[in-house]
C-alpha cells in the first residue's frame, strides 16, 4: 500500500475532544505522505478554513466534512442529546452542492439542540444526502441510510485495537454484506501525535466535568487515536487491504475545495435600469454636494472618481451601498453612528455619510483602505451608540433575512488562567489552590512557569504539578467554545448556511456562523462591523437635552469647530467624561501637549497608546513640539511620511511606510506585517520581522537605536495601535464631547450619567466633577425623579440642574424600572403612600430607596422614613386610606438622627454617589488639623515638596508599559491627585494598595509642564471615623 486517505479526523475544533490544531494535523499528514486528509469535526466546520489555508501552503489535498450526531428514533422541534439516544455518521462533501447540504444539515441540528450541541433527525439526514459521502460506523444505521446515499454509503470500519469494537465491526461487515455495501477503513483521529493522548484525556474530563480519577470509560481506553503512518495503517488493516484501498476511492470522489466557494455580496435594491456602481456614484455625488455645500472641489471630485473606479473594478459597490443603507437607517431612527478605522481614508465613505472625517482635507491615504494590489475586501467598522446598537443589528437581520445575514463568531480559547483552572481540576488538584495560582498570572498569559507554581505554594516536582505544567503549555490557545463577535456580520447574496453552518447564539434573536473574523478574512468574504460606542449614546442624549431644555438644535456636524475655549479646557486636563482623553494618562499628557487644533487632538488620541509609549516616541515628540529639539528625519525618504508628526512615527501607517521606505518591505509584505501586528495574541508572528526590519533599516543608514525603537513600537502597536484615520474619527468624537462639556456642563453631566456604564469614571466621580464645575446635582426624590437623570430648571433662576434618577439606586434594575415607569404614566407620585400603593415595590426596595434619601425631601430623617415605609407596606393591602404622612408619630420609637457625614455615606452605600457632599468634606477639618492638604492645594505645591495626602481611591492602573509602576487617582471634594507608586512601595504596602478605599500617601511632588504627580514613598491607612463600603474604584485595567 503506497498511501491512504485519513477519512475521520477531528481537530481541536471538535471542542474539548480533538487534541490537535487543524494545522498540526495537516502538517502531520504532509509529513506522513498521506494521499489526503478529511477534516470531520463534530457537528461543525469550525476548523476547515485554517486547515484549508495550511493545506494549500503544503499541497495536501483536503476533504471537507463533519461528524454528524444523529437521533435515529424520534425527532421534534427540540432535541436534547443528553436525554435521547444518538449515534453518529461521518459525512464528506463530494462537491460544492454536497458541502452546502452539509452546512444546511449542521445548521438544522444546531438550531434544535441546546447551545454547544447538535442533533439531526434520521429523515433530515436522508433528505440532505445529495452529493455527500456517508461513512457509517453504526451497523443499525446502514439500512436506513442505504436508499438515501446508495453507492455513496460506506460501512466504516474504524480500528483502535479495542476489544468491544470487534463486535461492532462484525455487525458492520454482515450488514454491509447484506446490503451489498463496501467497507472502508479508518481510525477516528483525535490528535496528530500519540504524545497528545494525555491532553485528549484531560479535554474529555473538562467536557464531562469529571476528574481523571472519576472519568472511567468516558476517556479513551488507549492511545490509538493518533494519525497513523501509512505503515501503521497497512499493518492495522493487514487482514482487510480492500477497505484500506477504498479510502483512496473515497478521496477520489470528494473533490470539493473551499476555493470553489463563490461568494457574492448581496445585491442592493437599486432603481430600475441602474447598475450598482451607478447608484453608488449617484449617492456619493449627492452626499458630496451636501458635504461641500454644492461646490465639490476639483481635487475631491478627482479622488471620488479614482475611488469609484477602483470600487467598480473590484465589484465592491454593494458593500458600500449596504453601509450607506445602515447609516441611512440610523439617521431615520435618530441613532448616532460614525465609521471608524481605515474607512475614514475614503472620500466615498465620507460623502456617503459613513465617516465624518474629510480624508482630502486631512491628507489621508486611500490605499490604506482599499488597494488593487491587496485585493481584499474593505473593512468598514461602524460605531453606533451602544444603547441602541441591538436595534440596528435586528434591523440588519430583518433587512437581509436570517438566511442571508449572520454574525461572525469569536472563538474563546484557553489562556493560562483558564487552563490552570480546568486542567488542574481534571487532574484533581484542589480548586482553591488552582484559584491561588491562576490569580498570579495575567489574563492574556499563555503559559505557566515553575516559579509561579512555587509562589502559589504548590510543589513543582509533584507529578500532578508536572502534568499541569506540560498540559497547560499544550492546551494554550486551544479553542474552548464559540462566542459571538462584538458586531461583525457576514452578509451573503446566496443563503449563508450554504457557505457555513449557522447556529443560534446565546443572546436571544442572534445567529452566528461557525467561522471567526480571521476565517472570514482568509476566504475574502465581506464583513460588516457594527460596534457599540458609549460616547455616541452620550452625544445623542446630550443633543436631545439641549433641544428640549435650551432650544438648541445641534448635530455633531454643526457643533462649532476649533473652539479655543474648549481647547483651553482640554489643555488643562479637565476632561472627565470626554471621549478618549479622560484617562489618567491622557489627562497627564494634555497639559504637556496643549492641543490647540483638531490635528493636535488626533495626535493626542494616538500618542497615549502602547505603540508610541513602548517605542519611546512620546518624549521626543513633546520636545520637538515645544521647540526644545530640532525636527529631524531619520532618513530623507521619510520626510513626507513623518512631516505631520515632526519626524516621529506615531500612527500605524507611518510605521508601515517606514517598513516600505527604509526597510525594503514590498507593499504586499508590508501588509503581511500589518496583519501580523493585528494578530498580536499569536505569539511569535511579529517576532519573525525583528531581525529583518532592524537590519534593513541599519543597512539604509538608520541608527540601530532608532530602528530598535521602531520595532518596539510595532510590538506595542500589536496591542491597539491607531492608524491616523482611526485616531481622527475618535478625535472628532472627543472634540464634540469636550465642546458639550465645556459649554453645556449640566446637559453633558445628565447625558453622561444616563449613558453609564461607559468611559473611565463612576457616577460619583462624574457628579463630583460636575459640582466642581458649578453644576447643581439634586438627589433622588420620589416626587420629582424619573427613572433616568433629568434636567430640572431651578424655579428662581431657570438655571438647569441635574436631578438624579431611580436607576442609580443600588439593586434597582429592570423589574423596578418596569413598576416605576408604569406608575409614572399616571403622573408624578404625590407622596410616600402614593408611591407605595402605585409601585407595589417590595419592602427591600422601599427600604433601599428610603436609605438613599428618596423619601426625605421634606426633611424627614431617613431612619424614620424606613420605619414608616415598612409600616405602610404592611398595610398596603388595606382598603382604607393609609396615612400620607410619614413623619414620625409621637409613640414611634426614636432612632438616632443621621449626621451630614453619615448621610453622605448612606448615599454612597445605596447609590454609589452623593449629591449632598463628598465623603471627605466631613473630614476636611480633621485633615486640616493634621496638615493634610486638599487636591486643589496639592496642585499648587512646588516640585520636590514633601507632603501627606488623603483621598478616595477612584482608579488603580498598572499599564503593561509602565514596568511595574501603579498609578492611583485619588479624589477629594476639590479634585484629583495622581499618585505614582513604584513597585517597591506597592509591594511593601500591598494590602493597603490593593484594598483601601480611603488612602493616605506620604510622598514627594513632581511637577512638570503643569502636570503634578505625587510620588509615593509610603502608603498609610488614615485613622479616621470613616466607613466607605459604597465607594468603588476602577482597578488594574
Amino acid at each position, binding site marked *: 500500500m503506497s498511501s491512504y486517505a485519513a477519512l475521520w479526523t477531528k481537530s481541536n475544533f471538535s471542542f474539548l475532544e480533538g487534541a490537535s490544531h487543524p494545522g498540526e494535523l495537516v502538517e502531520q499528514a504532509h509529513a506522513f505522505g498521506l494521499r489526503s486528509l478529511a477534516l470531520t469535526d463534530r457537528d461543525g466546520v469550525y476548523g476547515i478554513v485554517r486547515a484549508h489555508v495550511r493545506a494549500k501552503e503544503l499541497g495536501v489535498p483536503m476533504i471537507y466534512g463533519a461528524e454528524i450526531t444523529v437521533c435515529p428514533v424520534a425527532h421534534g422541534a427540540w432535541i436534547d442529546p443528553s436525554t435521547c439516544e444518538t449515534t453518529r455518521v461521518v459525512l464528506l462533501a463530494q462537491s460544492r452542492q454536497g458541502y452546502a447540504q452539509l452546512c444546511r444539515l449542521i445548521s438544522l441540528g444546531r438550531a434544535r439542540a441546546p447551545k454547544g450541541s447538535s442533533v439531526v433527525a434520521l429523515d433530515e439526514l436522508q433528505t440532505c444526502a445529495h452529493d455527500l459521502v456517508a461513512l457509517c460506523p453504526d451497523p443499525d444505521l446502514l439500512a436506513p441510510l442505504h436508499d438515501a446515499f446508495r453507492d455513496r454509503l460506506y460501512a466504516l470500519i474504524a480500528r483502535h485495537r479495542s476489544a468491544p469494537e470487534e463486535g461492532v465491526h462484525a455487525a458492520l461487515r454482515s450488514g454491509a454484506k447484506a446490503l451489498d455495501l463496501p467497507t472502508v477503513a479508518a481510525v477516528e483521529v483525535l490528535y496528530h501525535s500519540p504524545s497528545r493522548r494525555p491532553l485528549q484525556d484531560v479535554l474529555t474530563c473538562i467536557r464531562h466535568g469529571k476528574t481523571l480519577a472519576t472519568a472511567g470509560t468516558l476517556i479513551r481506553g488507549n492511545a490509538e487515536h493518533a494519525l497513523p503512518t501509512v505503515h501503521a495503517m497497512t499493518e492495522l488493516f493487514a487482514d482487510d487491504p480492500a477497505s484500506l484501498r477504498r479510502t483512496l476511492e473515497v478521496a477520489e470522489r470528494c473533490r470539493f475545495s473551499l476555493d470553489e466557494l463563490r461568494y457574492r455580496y448581496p445585491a442592493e435594491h437599486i432603481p430600475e435600469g441602474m447598475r450598482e456602481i451607478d447608484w453608488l456614484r449617484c449617492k456619493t455625488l449627492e452626499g458630496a454636494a451636501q458635504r461641500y455645500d454644492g461646490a465639490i472641489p476639483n481635487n475631491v471630485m478627482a479622488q471620488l472618481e479614482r475611488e469609484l473606479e477602483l470600487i467598480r473594478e473590484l465589484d465592491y459597490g454593494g458593500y458600500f451601498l449596504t453601509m450607506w443603507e445602515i447609516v441611512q437607517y440610523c439617521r431615520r431612527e435618530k441613532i448616532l453612528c460614525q465609521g471608524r478605522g481605515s474607512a475614514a481614508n475614503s472620500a466615498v465613505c465620507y460623502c456617503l455619510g459613513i465617516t465624518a472625517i474629510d480624508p482630502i482635507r486631512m491628507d489621508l491615504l486611500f490605499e490604506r483602505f482599499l488597494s488593487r494590489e491587496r485585493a481584499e475586501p474593505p473593512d468598514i467598522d461602524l460605531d453606533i451608540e451602544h444603547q441602541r446598537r441591538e436595534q440596528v443589528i435586528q434591523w440588519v437581520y430583518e433587512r437581509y433575512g436570517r438566511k442571508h445575514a449572520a454574525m461572525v463568531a469569536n472563538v474563546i480559547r484557553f489562556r493560562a488562567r483558564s487552563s490552570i483552572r480546568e486542567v488542574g481540576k481534571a487532574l484533581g488538584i484542589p480548586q482553591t489552590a488552582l484559584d491561588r495560582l491562576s490569580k498570579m498570572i495575567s489574563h492574556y498569559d499563555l503559559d505557566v512557569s515553575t516559579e509561579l507554581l512555587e509562589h502559589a505554594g504548590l510543589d513543582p516536582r509533584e507529578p500532578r504539578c508536572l502534568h499541569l505544567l506540560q498540559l497547560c503549555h499544550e492546551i494554550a490557545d486551544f479553542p474552548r467554545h464559540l462566542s459571538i463577535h462584538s458586531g461583525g456580520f457576514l452578509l451573503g447574496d446566496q443563503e449563508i448556511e450554504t457557505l457555513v453552518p449557522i447556529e443560534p447564539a446565546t443572546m436571544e434573536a442572534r445567529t452566528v456562523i461557525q467561522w471567526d473574523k480571521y476565517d472570514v478574512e482568509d476566504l475574502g468574504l465581506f464583513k460588516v462591523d457594527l460596534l457599540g460606542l458609549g460616547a455616541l449614546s452620550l452625544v445623542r442624549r446630550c443633543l436631545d437635552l439641549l433641544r428640549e431644555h435650551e432650544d438648541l438644535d445641534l448635530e455633531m456636524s454643526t457643533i462649532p469647530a476649533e473652539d479655543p475655549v474648549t481647547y483651553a479646557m482640554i489643555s488643562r486636563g479637565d476632561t472627565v467624561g470626554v471621549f478618549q482623553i479622560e484617562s489618567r494618562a491622557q489627562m497627564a499628557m494634555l497639559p504637556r501637549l496643549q492641543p490647540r487644533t483638531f490635528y493636535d487632538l488626533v495626535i493626542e488620541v494616538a500618542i497615549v497608546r502602547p505603540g508610541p509609549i513602548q517605542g519611546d516616541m512620546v518624549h521626543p515628540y513633546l520636545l520637538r513640539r515645544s521647540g526644545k529639539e530640532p525636527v529631524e528625519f531619520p532618513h530623507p525618504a521619510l520626510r513626507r511620511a513623518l512631516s505631520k508628526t515632526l519626524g516621529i512615527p506615531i500612527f500605524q501607517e507611518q510605521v508601515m511606510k517606514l517598513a516600505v521606505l527604509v526597510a525594503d518591505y514590498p507593499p504586499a509584505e508590508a501588509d503581511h506585517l500589518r496583519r501580523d501586528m493585528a494578530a498580536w495574541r499569536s505569539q511569535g508572528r511579529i517576532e519573525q520581522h525583528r531581525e529583518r526590519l532592524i537590519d534593513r533599516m541599519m543597512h539604509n543608514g538608520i541608527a540601530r537605536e532608532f530602528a530598535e525603537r521602531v520595532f518596539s513600537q510595532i510590538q506595542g502597536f500589536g496591542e491597539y495601535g491607531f492608524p491616523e484615520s482611526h485616531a481622527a474619527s475618535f478625535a472628532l468624537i472627543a472634540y464634540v464631547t469636550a465642546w458639550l462639556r465645556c459649554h453645556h456642563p449640566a446637559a453633558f453631566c445628565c447625558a453622561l450619567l444616563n449613558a453609564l456604564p461607559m468611559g473611565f469614571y463612576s457616577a460619583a466621580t462624574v457628579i463630583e466633577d460636575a459640582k466642581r464645575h458649578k453644576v447643581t446635582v439634586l438627589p433622588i426624590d420620589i416626587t420629582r425623579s424619573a427613572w433616568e437623570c433629568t434636567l430640572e430648571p431651578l424655579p428662581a433662576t431657570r438655571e438647569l440642574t441635574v436631578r438624579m434618577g431611580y436607576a442609580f439606586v443600588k439593586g434597582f434594575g429592570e423589574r423596578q424600572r418596569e413598576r416605576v415607569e408604569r406608575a409614572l404614566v399616571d403622573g408624578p407620585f404625590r407622596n410616600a403612600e402614593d408611591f407605595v400603593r402605585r409601585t407595589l415595590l417590595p419592602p427591600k426596595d422601599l427600604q433601599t430607596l428610603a436609605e438613599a434619601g428618596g423619601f426625605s425631601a421634606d426633611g424627614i430623617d431617613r431612619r424614620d422614613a*424606613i420605619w414608616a415605609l415598612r409600616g405602610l407596606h404592611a398595610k398596603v393591602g388595606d382598603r382604607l386610606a393609609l396615612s400620607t404622612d410619614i413623619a414620625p408619630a409621637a409613640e414611634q420609637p426614636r432612632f438616632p438622627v443621621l449626621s451630614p457625614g453619615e448621610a453622605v455615606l448612606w448615599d454612597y452605600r445605596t447609590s454609589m454617589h452623593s449629591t449632598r457632599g463628598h465623603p471627605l468634606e466631613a473630614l476636611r477639618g480633621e485633615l486640616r488639623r493634621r496638615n493634610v492638604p486638599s487636591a486643589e492645594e496639592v496642585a499648587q505645591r512646588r516640585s520636590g515638596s514633601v507632603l501627606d495626602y488623603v483621598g478616595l481611591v477612584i482608579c488603580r492602573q498598572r499599564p503593561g508599559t509602565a514596568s511595574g509602576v501603579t498609578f492611583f487617582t485619588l479624589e477629594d471634594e476639590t479634585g484629583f491627585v495622581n499618585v505614582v507608586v513604584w513597585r517597591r512601595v506597592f509591594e511593601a504596602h500591598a494590602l493597603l494598595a490593593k484594598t483601601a478605599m480611603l488612602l493616605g500617601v506620604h510622598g514627594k511632588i513632581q511637577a512638570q509642564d503643569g502636570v503634578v504627580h505625587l510620588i509615593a514613598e509610603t502608603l498609610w491607612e488614615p485613622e479616621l471615623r470613616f466607613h466607605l463600603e459604597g465607594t468603588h474604584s476602577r482597578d488594574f485595567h
Partner: protein
Amino acid sequence: MALARIACVDLPALPLQLLLRHHPTWRSGPVVVVDTDRPQGIVAWANVHARRHRILPGMTFAAAQSLAAHLQAAVVPPQDIARCVEELHHALVQFSPHVEPALHEPGVFWIDPSGLIPLYGSLEEWAQGIHTALVGRGFQACVVVGFHRFRSYALARCGVGPGHRTGTFAWVLPDPHTESRWSAKVPLAQLGIDPQLRDQLAVLGVVSLGQFLRLPVSELRARFGETAARLHHAASDDWAPLQPRPLEDPVTGELQLEPPDADHTRLLFGLKGLLHRLLHPLAERSQALRLLHLELELDHAPRHHEYIEPARPTLDATMILELVRLRLAALSLPAAVAAVHLELEGVLTDSEQLALFRTRQRRDLEAAGRALARLRAALGPEAVTRARLKPAHLPEASFEWEPILEARFPHPAPNVQAPLCRRFFSRPIPLPPRPRHEPEAWLGRASPVARLHGPHRISGGWWVRTVERDYYYAETKNGEILWIYYDRPRRRWFLQGVVD
C-alpha cells in the same frame, strides 16, 4: 428562694477550631473555613489573622484570597462538626445530666447547673471546671452562668461582661439585673441571628440587644416579620425551658468465669442467660438489637473484641446466640476466657406484628438474610460481598467488591444470551518470556497454543502509573481459551484469566 440558674457554653467558630486542631501549623497565618472547595465557595469562618487581612465571612474564597495570597482554606464536613458536638456533649454531661446543644449553632450548649454545686463547691468553680475541661481538649470556650437562657447565650457569644475585664472566660452573673444590664449592651451583630434582619435593624441604628428590646413587638412583627418577633420574645423576659438531650446508657452485662474457661460450649451456655436478661430492657425501650459488642477478657492475654450484626434488628435470643456460636467457632483465642462483657446497641423498631400476616414467599429473603448473617458471623463481615461493575478500561478496575448487608431478589436483564465467561485470577499470573519461535509449552500449560487473537490494547493511568497492556485470547490445542496480556512497561507476559 434561690432563683433558677442556667449556663451557656459557647465554643466560638467551632468548625474553624476543628480545622486548626487538624492543621496546628496553620494557626500563625490566615485561615478560613469555606462551604465548598471552589473559588466561589463562601467563607463561613475566618480566624483572627484572616480578619486582619479584612477577610470576612460571606466573602467568596476568590475574593478572600485576593486579600491574602497565602490564605489557607478547607471545608469542614458537617459530619465532622456533628461528631465534635457529640464529643463535647459527652464532655459536658460530666458536669450536669441536663445539657442541650443548640440546634443550628454548632458549639453552643445550655447546661442546667442545679443540684451540682455541692459537688464543686461553688458555681464559679463549676463553671471554671467546664472551661478547664474544654480547654484541656484543645478548644477555646466561654462559660456564662446566668438566669436567662438567651441573655446568658448573648453574653457568652460576645464576650462582654464582668469577666471580660479580668480576662476570664467562665463568669457567674450575680443577679438577673446585672445579667439584663450587661446583655443589653451585646451587639446584635455578635449573635447568631438572621443576617438580613441584623442588617435591616442596623440601618435603623438598632445595633444592641437593649435597643432591640425597646422596639414594640407588635410594630416589629408588622415591619420585620415573625423572625424578629420570635427573637424579641426569646430575648425578653419570657421563660424558655431547657430541653436537654435525653441520656441513654447502652445495655451492658458481664459474665465472670472462674476459673477461666476455653470451652466455647460452656461459654455459650453462660451467655445464654445473660443475653436473655439484657434483651429485656432493650425491648422495654422499644428497641431491637442492632449490634452486639462482645468483649472477651482473656487470662493473661490482651482483651479480644468482636462485633456481631444480625441480618436485621432483632430480639430473637436464639438467633443471636447462634451467631455468637458461629463467631466463637471461627476464633482461636490465645488464652482462656476470664470474663465476657456484653454491650447491646439497640435501634427503635416497628412493631413486628405485621410480620405475622406476611405471606410466606417461595424465596424467603429473611431466611437468606439470616444465612448471610451466619456467614458473616462465621467468616467475618468482609466475607459476604458481591461484585459491582464500574466504568473502567482495566479489567481489574472494572468491578469492585462490596459487602452485602441484605439479600435481594435478582433482576436479570431480559434476553441476555449466555456469553462466554471470563474468570479472573485475583492476581495476574506471570508467564515465562515468550521465546522467539513460540515453543509449545510457552504458557506453562500442558497444551500448546494453537491461535492468538489480538492484540486489544489498554493504556492509560499516565497521571498516576502508566499502564500499557496488549491483551490476547490464546486458544490452546486442547480447546482451552486463556486470557493473557503483554505488559509493555514491565516487558512481561501475564495470565489475566481463563474463558469458559
